């Protein structure tokens, strides 16, 4: 399987602080890749570096054989990579519907996702369409954030911590939408704290620690012990 999106020795910096030290991941068409790791492992930095919020050297991120590492976020989006940012980051001055509409601002191409199909995916949003986005519950806000990213009809959807702070039943509702997103042929990269959830939906898993990939593989072949070691860097023992 050839990769549609790849990072090659990706390094990322916040000023003088280095967050990523040469990360290699590959995402094939239609695949769902999960990025797991402890807090501060560099998961969000990886998503920001792919989406163009953080820029790196051109060849460090390659998409359909094109180096895009140095492109800014709007240019990355224009090529078909959309992101659901950590913390949802809805626009408080915009209504639910306006938040969805603005998702299509930078990429108006044809595709399966329209206001209508997003409302079919998350029917509750249709009822709340004229509410200010920030008046919704956390789960509904997350649906707006996902719908907003879908409105650009992405070929790759990056989802950063979409279950963070949500009740398990709400998380289940949100993940229930995944098969329909995948059915459009889009690849997905998800950052997920909930390892069980990640292993359930992913076709490929990468574990990050301190800005480096410590483990990768198909979820069915990874053992608990391997994941634990990749997570914490040492064999399991009691913490004190």
């Amino acid at each position, binding site marked *: 399987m050839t990769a549609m999106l790849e990072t090659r020795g990706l390094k990322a910096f916040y000023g003088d602080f280095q967050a990523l030290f040469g990360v290699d991941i590959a995402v094939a068409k239609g695949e769902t890749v999960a990025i797991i790791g402890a807090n501060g492992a560099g998961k969000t930095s990886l998503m920001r570096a792919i989406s163009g919020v953080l820029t790196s050297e051109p060849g460090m991120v390659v998409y359909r054989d094109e180096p895009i590492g140095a492109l800014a976020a709007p240019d990355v989006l224009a090529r078909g990579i959309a992101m659901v940012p950590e913390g949802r980051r809805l626009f408080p*001055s915009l209504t639910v519907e*306006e938040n969805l509409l603005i998702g299509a601002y930078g990429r108006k191409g044809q595709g399966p996702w329209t206001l209508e199909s997003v409302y079919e995916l998350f029917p509750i949003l249709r009822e709340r369409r004229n509410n200010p986005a920030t008046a919704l519950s956390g789960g509904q806000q997350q649906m707006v954030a996902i719908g907003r990213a879908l409105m650009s009809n992405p070929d790759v959807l990056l989802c950063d911590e979409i279950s963070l702070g949500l009740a398990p039943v709400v998380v289940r509702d949100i993940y229930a939408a995944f098969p329909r997103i995948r059915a459009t042929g889009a690849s997905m990269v998800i950052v997920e704290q909930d390892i069980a959830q990640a292993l359930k939906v992913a076709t490929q898993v990468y574990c990050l620690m301190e800005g480096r990939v410590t483990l990768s593989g198909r979820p069915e072949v990874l053992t608990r012990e391997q994941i634990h070691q990749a997570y914490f860097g040492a064999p399991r023992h009691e913490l004190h």
Partner: protein
Amino acid sequence: MSFIDTIVQGVLLGGLYALFAAGLSLVFGIMRLVNLAHGDLIVLAAFLILLLTSALGLNPFLAALIAAPLMFLTGWGLQYFVLNRTLGKDVLPPLLVTFGISIVLQNGLLEAFSADSRRVSIGALESASIGVGSLNIGLMPLMTFLSALAVIFGLNQLIYRTALGRAFRATSDDIVTAGLMGIRPQRVFAMATGLAMVVVTIAALYLGTRANFDPTSGPSRLIYAFEAVIIGGLGSLWGTLAGGVILGVAQTLGAAVNPEWQILAGHLAFLTVLVIKPRGLFPRAVD
């Protein structure tokens, strides 16, 4: 009755101040930038209209129509190439750069047009008036006020009903996430300043036809615009109109008592509002 007459004149004058202020309010709302050269840009536009009317013999309204796209380009370029470089956490660079632009514009206009007071002639319209009951309302002041209403209505439609308006609001909310939507903040800001300059041109049309102006008239227009914005409350264009009206009424009332007190009365009204309601009379959100 002359008291009512004074109030009506004040309200209509407020329309002019709202036109001065609308562009300032728009730009601040979107990028938190206060352009200290705003008044000088109004004067620049007035000279542009004057040049078009005197050199080409155009009607001032037609001249403004030609000046508007030119001013749009000026604003777009100024924002894109200069002011965007100054935006950030620190408020010092944009203030000092726009202050510098203000000085450069004033002195450039002085060199080009001398210090003489000018006026754009508008023929018979200048003194035309309509009688409403016992009141005599000047046609130009009335048109100014109606233009202010139209401009603010139009800007609100743009901000709340169009894709560009959504981009304005989204960028103002969260510039990083706006980038993820494909919005290029640099261009959005340039559009906003360009648009503000179109409003500035409309303001300049009425400034130039109703009163004398000279290259140093800019700073006081900036101050009136600023007072209207603060009285009305940040972030609300209708509030800005109300602020302009309050300022205009205060000035005409002051002038009715003693002509020397016109400007002072406006400033005192502003300071009073500042003490009673520091966030203005119609504040929108927490900024």
